[in-house]
């Protein structure tokens, strides 16, 4: 248990905009929280340390990635006070940082020490001045320029090229002041479970509590057990709590934490729509309203709702909507040009004064609340020599994970469990440099060519069918069918999680013969429409066992009295037989 420190905090205060620099306002203190908490009034010395560090260095825009809210906030405020801005990458993978480095004068290190900055753009201007040397700081009283650039955020563009979105102090203040009037923070503490490198976490988890002079915490509080602990710490000194979180967190909130006693007064969720059942369950577990915010990096917040009351989204005050042709256009004070119309990529339908969301227009998916460009992911896979083509599939599964279909030359296709696993590992490794872990496809399918419909476009139904075994563990993985009239060849794969594998020979899972017969009948009925009732099986032969992960060709032949079938793999023939499927002649 972290010992209580002497952080002085104030129970409540009124809202001040960023340009008035609320973190430099004197306040009275009436409580103490652990070191895990951050408060505007205790940040002063670290802001000054960062200003000293920045002073001899080039001026401009700095790359800032820090998971600890105190480090992040102190460095950000030091940049602002010294007339500079921050570019906030969504992650700190080498590929991300390298791509962004030409746009900044340097990268903010983990601490304001004298370590030289390893950024090519500042080579030659590196300054090894010891941080301990005192540099006269310019007066911290100067206000911040309303139209000046405060932060630049990164987002995934629909073309696959990440785009950068700059926000001025005016834009941030417009949004913060509306949050303040809708949901004042006086007397509260803010516990964040989302990243402050993105707009929602930045506004609600860091800037809003700063502007209200209330304590906030993040990072470790993404663990539900830590979040419960923080809530009890702030309750202990008489504060109530606001929880800033996401559907990924709320849908996995454990029941045993007795959170209903933790004085949580409101809960904010953003990043993706929350399922109604999760919203209801969490309102009960947390004993507080769950308010969802809909928006995007470009627009900031657009609308909000409390789904248990009303599932339509209601726009923020000051936002003007145009919902014709199921397109969402808006004019918003949070945009760089409040008088110009902005078009969102989401399709909508009008509902009273608000709207409902119908899905996206472009090829972006959301996993764990993060926007992922499917195009970029596919392009990256296609860079590999043995990958001919790739197509991501949004599967609408509860876990929100992506599936991907990869087309490869026939002799490169994995035929068994081990090679398949090694192939997936190598593809993951290739993507890993550029992709956040949650964006990594979880379900992989390998085929010779991506299925096309008669118009030459990707056949969505066939693409989705490759993943049908995920929702029915009795089925083989269907990977395509070729044939006509009386002869068909189907490509199947045995899922490692097939229900029938265990219990035959210990430690040696295999597909029982009766299951192979059942699959033959079932697929026969699909390709030959005129089969009758089951009458019997003849000439059954099981030559080789069929193991999990095995890729098979099921050949089906229409016979006068039913079907003939064979199962073959790269190893040879596994099974064959005939099934009589005709109505008996009376």
């Amino acid at each position, binding site marked *: 248990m972290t010992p209580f420190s002497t952080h002085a905090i104030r129970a409540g205060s009124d809202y001040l905009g960023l340009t008035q620099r609320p973190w430099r306002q004197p306040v009275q203190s009436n409580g103490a929280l652990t070191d895990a908490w951050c408060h505007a009034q205790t940040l002063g010395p670290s802001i000054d340390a960062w200003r000293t560090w920045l002073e001899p260095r080039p001026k401009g825009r700095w790359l800032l990635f820090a998971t600890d809210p105190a480090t992040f906030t102190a460095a950000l405020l030091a940049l602002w006070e010294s007339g500079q801005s921050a570019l906030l990458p969504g992650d700190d993978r080498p590929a991300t940082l390298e791509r962004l480095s030409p746009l900044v004068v340097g990268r903010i290190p983990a601490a304001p020490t004298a370590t030289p900055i390893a950024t090519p753009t500042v080579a030659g201007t590196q300054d090894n001045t010891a941080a301990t040397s005192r540099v006269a700081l310019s007066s911290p009283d100067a206000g911040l320029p309303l139209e000046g650039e405060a932060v630049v955020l990164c987002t995934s563009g629909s073309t696959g090229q990440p785009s950068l979105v700059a926000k001025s102090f005016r834009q941030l203040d417009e949004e913060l002041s509306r949050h303040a009037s809708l949901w004042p923070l006086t007397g509260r503490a803010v516990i964040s479970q989302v990243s402050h490198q993105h707009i929602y976490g930045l506004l609600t988890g860091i800037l809003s509590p700063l502007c209200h002079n209330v304590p906030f915490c993040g990072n*470790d509080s*993404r*663990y*539900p*057990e*830590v979040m*419960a*602990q923080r809530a009890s710490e702030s309750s202990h000194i008489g504060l109530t709590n606001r929880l800033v979180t996401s559907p*990924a*967190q709320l849908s*996995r909130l*454990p029941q*045993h934490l007795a959170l209903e006693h933790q004085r949580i007064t409101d809960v904010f969720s953003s990043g993706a729509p929350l399922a109604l059942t999760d919203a209801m369950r969490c309102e009960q577990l947390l004993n507080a309203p769950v308010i969802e915010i809909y928006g995007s990096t470009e627009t900031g917040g657009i609308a909000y709702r409390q789904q248990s009351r009303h599932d339509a989204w209601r726009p923020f005050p000051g936002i003007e909507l145009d919902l014709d042709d199921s397109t969402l256009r808006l004019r918003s004070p949070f945009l760089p040009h409040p008088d110009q119309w902005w078009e969102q990529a989401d399709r909508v339908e009008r509902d009273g004064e608000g709207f409902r969301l119908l899905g996206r227009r472009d090829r972006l998916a959301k996993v*764990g609340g993060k926007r992922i460009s499917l195009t970029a992911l596919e392009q990256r896979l296609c860079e590999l020599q043995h990958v001919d083509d790739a197509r991501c599939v949004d599967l609408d*599964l509860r*876990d929100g*994970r992506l599936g991907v279909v990869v087309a490869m030359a026939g002799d490169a296709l994995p035929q068994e*469990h081990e090679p*398949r*696993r090694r192939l*997936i590992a190598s593809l*993951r490794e290739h993507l890993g440099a550029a992709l*956040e*872990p*949650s964006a*990594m496809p*979880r*379900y*992989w399918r390998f085929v010779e060519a991506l299925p096309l419909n008669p118009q030459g476009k990707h056949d969505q139904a066939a693409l989705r069918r490759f993943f049908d075994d*995920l929702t029915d563990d009795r089925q083989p993985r269907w990977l395509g069918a070729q044939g006509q009239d009386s002869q068909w060849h189907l490509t199947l794969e045995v*899922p*490692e*999680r097939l229900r029938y594998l265990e219990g035959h020979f210990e430690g040696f*899972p295999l597909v029982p013969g009766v299951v192979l017969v059942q699959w033959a009948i079932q697929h026969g009925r699909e390709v030959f429409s005129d089969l009758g009732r089951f009458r019997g099986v003849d000439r059954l032969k099981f030559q080789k066992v069929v193991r*999990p*992960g095995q890729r098979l060709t099921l050949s089906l032949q229409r016979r006068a009295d039913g079907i003939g079938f064979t199962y073959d793999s790269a190893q040879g023939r596994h099974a064959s037989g005939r099934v009589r499927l005709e109505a008996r002649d009376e």
Partner: protein
Amino acid sequence: MNQSDALALDLKHMIIDTLELEDVTPDDIDEQAPLFGDGLGLDSIDALELGLALQKRYGVTLDAEAEDTRRHFASLAALKALVEERRVD
């Protein structure tokens, strides 16, 4: 199979089923290899799912020390030690 091996196998099945790791079999999970990052490649959402599954299956609750949580989820061996120490079923 001794008790410890049985628990390891049970945990492997729990991980595979909970996280829908379709291409992974129990044999593929090395007890000492990292579950997150480079090893099995699990992420922060998976950590939440595993926390829920541990509670449901073994009655194990995690505490508020985040460092502890990270340590317990480091490998299958670490997870096994956690369950052996705290299981209440």
